[in-house]
């Protein structure tokens, strides 16, 4: 925290990922700077989630390098990898809360595994984290099955933040939420990013999120990054997919006009 804003926390170079005969990502390179909110957009099935899962090591890559906190993830020992994993938190698309644990126990789980804390402190910190994402003490005792979709996402965010990570990866954080809840979730992410000094890597489809909270956006199309930059760059891009996405029928700019390119 508090380092120069230009410091890179994630560096991806020439990344190639594929399954069987199919290449999903072909030569993807980009950087994530400390303290920024980076949005990743792209067509459904276009490899956004694959990119996220490759960076966090759930999918193996064919070629290229991924450097997180100045450590090349191909060359780290198991111990160093665990240290890196403690410094990032992941919010999965469906929340991925453990269904047999209450909301509070879900948030306590990573703390219990990685830190040696007293039960009182565990309870207190978990309560504080849940309150920071807007979950009151009465809901903290509920099981995930008893929570609404928006609350599940909030609890999952609290769990991603349990160990005070420096990077959080969000996989479609606002999908499945109504526009009001999605807006609240966006501002929650922005607030937490400021108070905790987080770096956010966010895969999203939500144009409002991109406008409201993202500092920078990268666009995946045809297995490559076709555009990168702040929202203004996206709006002035002439790449057909980017144009259709940001200036299409459903975008703010294109409301009322019809763009049928794809």
């Amino acid at each position: 925290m508090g380092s120069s804003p230009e410091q890179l926390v994630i560096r991806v170079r020439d990344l190639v990922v594929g399954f069987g005969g199919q290449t999903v990502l072909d030569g993807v390179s980009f950087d994530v700077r400390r303290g920024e909110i980076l949005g990743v957009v792209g067509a459904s099935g276009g490899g956004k989630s694959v990119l996220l899962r490759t960076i966090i090591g759930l999918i193996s890559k064919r070629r290229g390098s991924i450097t997180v906190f100045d450590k090349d993830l191909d060359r780290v020992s198991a111990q160093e990898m665990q240290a890196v994993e403690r410094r990032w938190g992941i919010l999965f698309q469906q929340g991925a809360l453990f269904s047999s644990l209450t909301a509070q126990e879900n948030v306590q789980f990573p703390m219990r595994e990685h830190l040696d804390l007293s039960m009182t402190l565990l309870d207190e910190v978990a309560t504080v984290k849940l309150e920071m994402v807007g979950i009151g003490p009465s809901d903290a005792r509920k099981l995930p099955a008893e929570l609404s979709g928006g609350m599940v996402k909030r609890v999952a965010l609290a769990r991603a933040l349990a160990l005070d990570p420096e990077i959080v990866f969000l996989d479609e954080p606002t999908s499945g939420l109504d526009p009001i809840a999605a807006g609240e979730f966006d501002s929650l992410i922005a607030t937490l990013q400021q108070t905790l000094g987080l770096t956010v890597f966010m895969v999203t489809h939500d144009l409002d999120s991109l406008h409201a909270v993202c500092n920078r956006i990268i666009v995946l199309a045809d297995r490559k990054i076709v555009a990168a930059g702040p929202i203004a760059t996206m709006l002035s891009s002439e790449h057909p997919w980017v144009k259709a996405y940001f200036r299409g029928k459903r975008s703010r700019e294109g409301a009322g006009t019809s763009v049928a390119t794809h």
Partner: protein
Amino acid sequence: MAPELIVKDASAGARLEVFASGSWISAHAAELEQKIDAIKFDAPGSGRLDIDIAGIGELDTFGAWLLERLARAFIAQGYDAQFAEVSGRFLGLLDEIHACGRTKPVVVRQNPILAKLEGIGVAATEFGQDLLRLIDLLGRMCGVIALIFRHPSRFRFASAVHQLDRVGWQALPIIFLITLLIGAIIAQQGIFHFRKFGAGDYVVDLVGILVLRELGVLIVAIMVAGRSGSSYTAELGSMKMREEIDALRTMGLDPVEVLMLPRIVALVCALPILTFFGSMCALYGGGLVAWLYGGMSPPIYIARLKEAVSVTHFEVGMIKAPFMALVIGLVACSEGLQVAGSAESLGLKTTASVVKSIFLVIVMDGFFAIFFASVGM
């Protein structure tokens, strides 16, 4: 940098001073908690107290909460505690934490004896409701069957045949193996013990009557409950979880007619067949052991078997089979429909389905025994 917490004593009229410095982060949280808990308050104080945090180099949520807890501890002693020398980058976090943890969760304490009693009551009503649900499902199924008698084309024949393949044909190998072993074991034990008083030959009566009347159908029913009943519950349960059953309903289709009837019909057809083959296999296993272990040649075994068992014994076993299939099918379907949203509930209901159907099968076997005894079969 290791975290430090220094409390300068308020002796000789001097003001109480508190300095915090170093890294107040999660890695040091346990150590910091001990330091905070170690502060002794001799007497309630008063007046303004500044907690100097200028020396803090790193701060995360854990550290911020511990600072807040420290401040609250002083406030509880009557001080007007505040943070001093807060650097700008920590301000947002400390403010955020300051607002948290104000509402204490209400802990509901229960009398353990009352809780146990409540548990028993809940289990008892649960049992009653389970029976009601089974009767309700049976009633609805009868309704559907009546409907199908009027419009036979509505019966899902393909689905029933598919299920029959799964629960009947595919179950044959394991049923063969298990019943063969059971027959062999009974024969071996019978020969071993009967020989002592020279009645080794009566093992044929033992195997024949036991297998045909009781064990054949019971073993097969228990196997089917574990193998097919559990898969029915898991299938219907995951369909319930993914709202497929609701989707069926909204399309004007009755889940009982579409999903349950073909499954239960398949089970009712399959279980007598499996029981027949199972019983034959057990007799075969018994014969093998009688020949290899007891030295009774197969023609003699078959001749003795003809004398020992009658068609009645066979009928008693076979009559029970379809009723047991009905119970297994009903329990499996009704448990499947009770699955709620979580993966855990699916597991619980699948277990419950197997346990309940085996229990009911054995209870029913007992009632059948009384019934057949009183009608003289």
